[in-house]
């Protein structure tokens, strides 16, 4: 029995909610219990934005997360806010092409991923979220790469179908990225 609690944070427009939705659909397709809770309100677009995703083998109680197992920090304010909350031994993913500082914690596993940069090199600088998610899939046992395409089809709306391939390509680039 396992439960993975994930917080994704950044600013509006970075695909924070989209990434969470993709994770939730992956969990659903893999037959797990999932919850997706967004921040909502006037902070949309440009302001800070975050969402909490839980993927579990058992029914989920609180959708609100105190100590996430995985934190994805897509900008500096998000790192400042959520680094202290990561569960001991948890994983912290840092968007290092936008964040100029190192992690302070030494009791968590830190992954520096220059997401926007990798996305840019692969054809679309807006898809840094997919780079990071690719890396998350590689480093955690919570998501299966072979079901992500099915989830992507659910999450990308019909009128944006042409973006499926580029999302998958960049996801793979993130999956293959070596932090060392």
């Amino acid at each position, binding site marked *: 029995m396992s439960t993975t609690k994930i917080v994704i944070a950044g600013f509006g427009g970075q695909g924070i909610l989209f990434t969470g939705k993709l994770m939730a659909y992956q969990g*659903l397709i893999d037959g797990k219990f999932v919850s997706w*809770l967004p921040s*909502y*309100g006037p902070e949309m677009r440009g302001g800070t934005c975050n969402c909490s995703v839980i993927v579990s083998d058992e029914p989920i*109680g*609180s959708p*609100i997360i*105190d100590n996430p197992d995985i934190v994805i920090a897509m900008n500096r304010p998000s790192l400042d806010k959520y680094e202290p909350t990561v569960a001991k031994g948890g994983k912290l993913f840092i968007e290092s092409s936008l964040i100029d500082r190192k992690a302070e914690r030494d009791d968590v596993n830190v992954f520096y991923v220059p997401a926007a940069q990798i996305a840019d090199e692969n054809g679309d600088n807006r898809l840094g979220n997919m780079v990071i998610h690719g890396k998350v899939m590689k480093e955690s046992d919570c998501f299966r790469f072979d079901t992500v395409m099915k989830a992507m089809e*659910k999450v990308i709306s019909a009128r944006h179908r042409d973006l499926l391939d580029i999302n998958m390509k960049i996801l793979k680039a993130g999956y293959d990225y070596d932090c060392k």
Partner: protein
Amino acid sequence: MSEKVLMKGNEAIAEAAIRSGCRYYLGYPITPQTEIAAYMAKRMPKIGGTFLQAESEISAINMVYGVACSGKRCMTSSSSPGISLKCEGLSYLAACDLPSVIVNVQRGGPGLGGIQPSQSDYFQATKGSGHGDFRMIVLAPSSVQEMADLTSLAFDLADKHRMPSMILADGTIGQMMEPVELSDTMHETHYEKPWACTGTNLKREHNIINSLILKPEILEQLNIERYKKYEVVEKEEVRYEEFMMDDAEICIVAFGIASRVSKSAIVEARKQGIKVGLIRPITLWPFPSEPIKAAADKVKSFISVELSMGQLIYDVQLAEECRKPVYLCSRVGGMIVSPDYVLNKIVEVNNLGGEN
């Protein structure tokens, strides 16, 4: 079994309403429930239904009154400040015994307050939704699945008992997504409505729906009869869930999002050897007094976990007849109790051992 899909709680309410035969949605946008209106705006025209954005909440609730008079299933939704505006209409709906479904996706108050989740309209929903002696059936979903299921139930109960019923949700459950299975069996249950104003075809007397009764002896009688109906509802329609109550020494009472958080805290407390359980009212009115009263024989104390300054706690005290102490664990103003916050309260109450 139909496929599970990911949906926001608000969307689940809208889809369930449509599947339950609601073809009239009258509303006015307000965060955090606007997805209901957006969903209805998209779907209703495609299925021959009516989506109407009124010029105000007051206008919307009076349109509900109009549709309900014709016996058709109808719904409105809003969030806390908007529900206050609808209160006059709620009183009229109750006075005329009109089935209707009202959704309140609560946000922090009072006044315009904020837009983050809250449960501080508990009193308003269960005690004072308008002037005069009346009740509404109040259902409190705690998951996206229940947002759908209880909406469907709300329509049935409203028709069955000829009274307004309310879904009392909150911003969290409205905004969050979870897998939901929209049962293929969800449909409009048929209820005879001989009282509805649908035209006489010159074959019967006019049906008159009116709440102005100037003769006090008649108005008194109508009130007494309506309360007989409420007695039936109190007897037949109480719904609740018990969680880990078998050996519990502390009983948490919580509904909606607060009950979800409490469950997580209970699981953690149990790991520390604290015997704690939960009674979750699903109907806030009628209130599940009996199981709480019964629990008072077994437990040392109660904790009311709620997103208000202490509203639910009064009903807990009434139900258990003040035999055991009831402690309050709450956050307000759009702040939400976290599992750790509730756990700390459980530990603190456990250390008191039932002493005041």
